């Protein structure tokens, strides 16, 4: 990995070790971090403890099996795990597969750029900080939106929903995508 003065987080490093080296100890670390959070997250939508654990198991196995799709230059581990979790919840609850966008043509780089990873992590950290500073009712609306409990009409008419806060954070991902597109041409 290209050197950088700051350190990338243990979670990102573990995910890269799972992806590149099929590292079981690293996977165990990811499990310890995510499994209880996932269970709490899933149970918030009214799913019982037993079924929630089944979904946690499916999600963690997908993290292992689809690790080659994880791109730390574009997404933080938590964002990637969130996506897998919501897709799995929808598949289980609605008994149908959620349509997903095409994967980008390029495989994630095996030697990711540490400064880009750090920038993505920094952005995610700022996002978490912004969430923590919201008023309780605003925070509740955000949580409902990302638990799939608000329709798009409700999201668009919620005046208290600070989506603008989020939009201001997309700059990095967008720049990265533009950069990749240029390389593909």
């Amino acid at each position, binding site marked *: 990995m290209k050197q950088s003065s700051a350190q990338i987080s243990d979670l990102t490093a573990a995910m890269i070790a799972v992806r590149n080296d099929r590292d079981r100890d690293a996977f165990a670390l990811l*499990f310890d971090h995510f*499994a209880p959070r996932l*269970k*709490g997250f899933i149970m918030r939508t009214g799913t019982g403890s037993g079924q929630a654990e089944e979904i946690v198991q499916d999600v963690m196995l997908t993290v292992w099996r689809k690790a080659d799709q994880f791109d730390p230059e574009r997404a933080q581990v938590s*964002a990637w795990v969130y996506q897998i979790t919501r897709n799995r919840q929808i598949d289980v609850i609605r008994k149908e597969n959620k*349509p997903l966008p095409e994967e980008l043509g390029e495989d994630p780089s095996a030697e990711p750029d540490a400064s880009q990873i750090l920038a993505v992590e920094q952005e995610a950290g700022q996002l978490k900080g912004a*969430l923590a500073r919201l008023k309780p009712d605003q925070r509740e609306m955000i949580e409902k939106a990302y*638990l799939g409990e*608000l329709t*798009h009409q409700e999201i668009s008419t919620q005046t208290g929903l600070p989506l603008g806060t989020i939009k201001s954070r997309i700059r990095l991902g967008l720049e990265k995508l533009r950069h990749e597109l240029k390389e593909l041409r």
Partner: protein
Amino acid sequence: MTTITHHAPDALLAAYAGGSLPKPFALAVAAHISLCLDCRAAYEAHLATGGAVLETTNSEAVSDGLKSNVLDLLDAPVTEKPVYQRSGAFPGPVMEALKGKPPRWKSLGMGVRQSILSDGRDGSVRLLYIPPGRAVPDHSHNGLELTLVLQGSFRDETGRFGVGDLEVADQSLEHTPIADEGAPCICLAATDAPLRFNSFVPRLLQPLFRI
């Protein structure tokens, strides 16, 4: 790649990321994101926010055996679901809805054709094929309607829509989309209402028949 000028509104992307969109709309948004880097980036920003919510949700202790169960299953054989690749004008999610086969077009008259991908309680989604200069058939404007251009282009009172553009229309929009000259226009059209009729009369005829 042509320049996409009509994007998915942010609330739609947030609802897609959160998973509350009915499947017909989810398909239209997934297909649009497949063609539009701007909306892919915005979608990934929503996933990042979802990740932040996940990180800050209260934890629940998992059963003692869960971790060893999962570790034991890491090398268990799995049957991979097929991944549908883009084919011609059809992005991967549309190919998946077509189950990898070419569309089965049914004539609607005047050279206009449709291929219904799904029609159920949560709405409908279909492909439309409109020859140059012809009008796009009515999409049963009960509620919201998303139209994604996959080939060619069309124009209406609100502007021009080319490949990758997503038109978001609610009941209040009175418009008459006409396919431009050049290649036939192929669109993916999704509504949150079931189709009202088995066959459609192209919009140009509607004033005559007052449907």
